[in-house]
């Protein structure tokens, strides 16, 4: 099997498992929706224009929801003994990383695709713009890139669900800042040419952290 086929097979396995339970997807979606609604209540009395806080609220909701999904990503693998099976399978370790990472990326993206129109309506902003969607994809890619690596680590710890956000948030701060800045700029109608440095930062973050995660993943799943 070529490397690409191996990756696709693992993604396919995750999608099949998810379609049977819909556990990860439904909890992420409901959680994202809940946080949007709660932020609306929490800020409405003090903030004159909801659009000013929309980018921040959007990204916090998406990353918090994504955290739920990432937490589940390796829990099922480990509890059902599937992780051992994956490691014994004649596939490259990095194929496991890219497979799991793309699976997580896909699940979070699907949640975003449903939450974005709802969010646009609730906050009365237009998020369905090509560049906003590109920023969403790039931000989610970096987030799931590091998130998958850390999720494979925290699944072995005591109190695993608690530790993942603690490990992940300080590291993804630069990607979050860039994503929020870009989303805010695009909503304010600024040209992308004014914000190329943020775009470069976001892309650089994705490349650097996916490369580092790919290089260190071997040590995380090693027995």
């Amino acid at each position, binding site marked *: 099997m070529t490397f690409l086929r191996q990756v696709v097979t693992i993604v396919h396995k995750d999608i099949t498992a998810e379609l049977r339970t819909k556990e990860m997807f439904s909890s992420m979606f409901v959680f994202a929706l809940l946080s949007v609604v709660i932020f609306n209540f929490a800020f409405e009395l003090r903030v004159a224009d909801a659009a000013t806080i929309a980018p921040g609220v959007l990204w916090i909701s998406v990353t918090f929801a994504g955290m739920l999904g990432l937490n589940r990503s390796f829990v099922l693998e480990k509890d059902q003994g599937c992780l051992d099976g994956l490691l014994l399978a004649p596939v490259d370790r990095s194929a496991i990383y890219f497979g799991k990472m793309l699976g997580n990326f896909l699940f979070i993206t699907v949640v975003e695709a449903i939450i974005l129109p709802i969010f646009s309506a609730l906050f009365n902003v237009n998020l369905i713009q090509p560049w906003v969607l590109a920023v969403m994809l790039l931000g989610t890619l970096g987030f799931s890139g*590091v998130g998958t690596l850390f999720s494979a*680590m*925290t699944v072995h*710890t005591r109190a695993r669900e608690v530790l993942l956000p603690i490990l992940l948030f300080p590291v993804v701060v*630069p990607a979050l*800042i860039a994503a929020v800045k870009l989303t805010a700029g695009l909503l304010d109608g600024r040209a992308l040419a004014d914000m190329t440095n943020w775009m470069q*930062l976001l892309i650089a973050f994705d490349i650097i952290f996916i490369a*580092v995660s790919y290089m*260190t993943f071997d*040590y995380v799943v090693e027995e």
Partner: protein
Amino acid sequence: MKTSRLDGTIVLNLVTAVFILVALYLALIQSPAPANVDTETQRYAQRIIYFHIPHAWVGFLAFLVTFVGSVLYLWKGERRWDILALSSVEVGVAFITATIITGSIWAKPAWNTWWTWDPRLTTSTITWLIYISYLMLRSALDDPARRARFAAVYGIVGFISVPITFFAIRWWRTIHPVLFDASNMGLSPNMRFPFFFSLAAFTLLYLVILIQRVRVEHLADQVARLKASLTSIK
């Protein structure tokens, strides 16, 4: 195995003690009062740079050592690199904590606020959080080999994110004084000697604490081995 109490490190310890005392004298008494500040409080507060910047420098140096230790551990798999990485994180966190506190004390008279979301302050805080998380990760893992491997991975990923965070936050407005830039140094010539002396003294202090912390960890390993051998005899 017996370790003598009088070993090579005693010399380093004594030298460091002398250096720290001299640095205190230079910073608090010998160095000139700054010329370009308005109030008396600010004039005294300015002397904090002889402690604040060396602490920040040592903190980031310590995390660099952790990064190197983590890479070496993953490469060689030897316990001593893991011990080095862990010990350096603990010392680094202490120094960064001191940096944040001294900075805050200085900021009150200088900027009239304890805290502001300036790039350096924010980067230091996020770095501090990363290494607190590093320690939490270690304490949440029971298997020593796995703990060492995971900590090494986090030590590498965390360290790489620090400069990226700094650049990300730097594109916001900054009000932190930039002491050194390419063309000009913010310190007057007669402040430079006390400053660099202080820098050297605190770097020595870092080395002393690091060496002792590494020894404690080696001793703890030894105790664990002895305990294990005793239980196996029983």
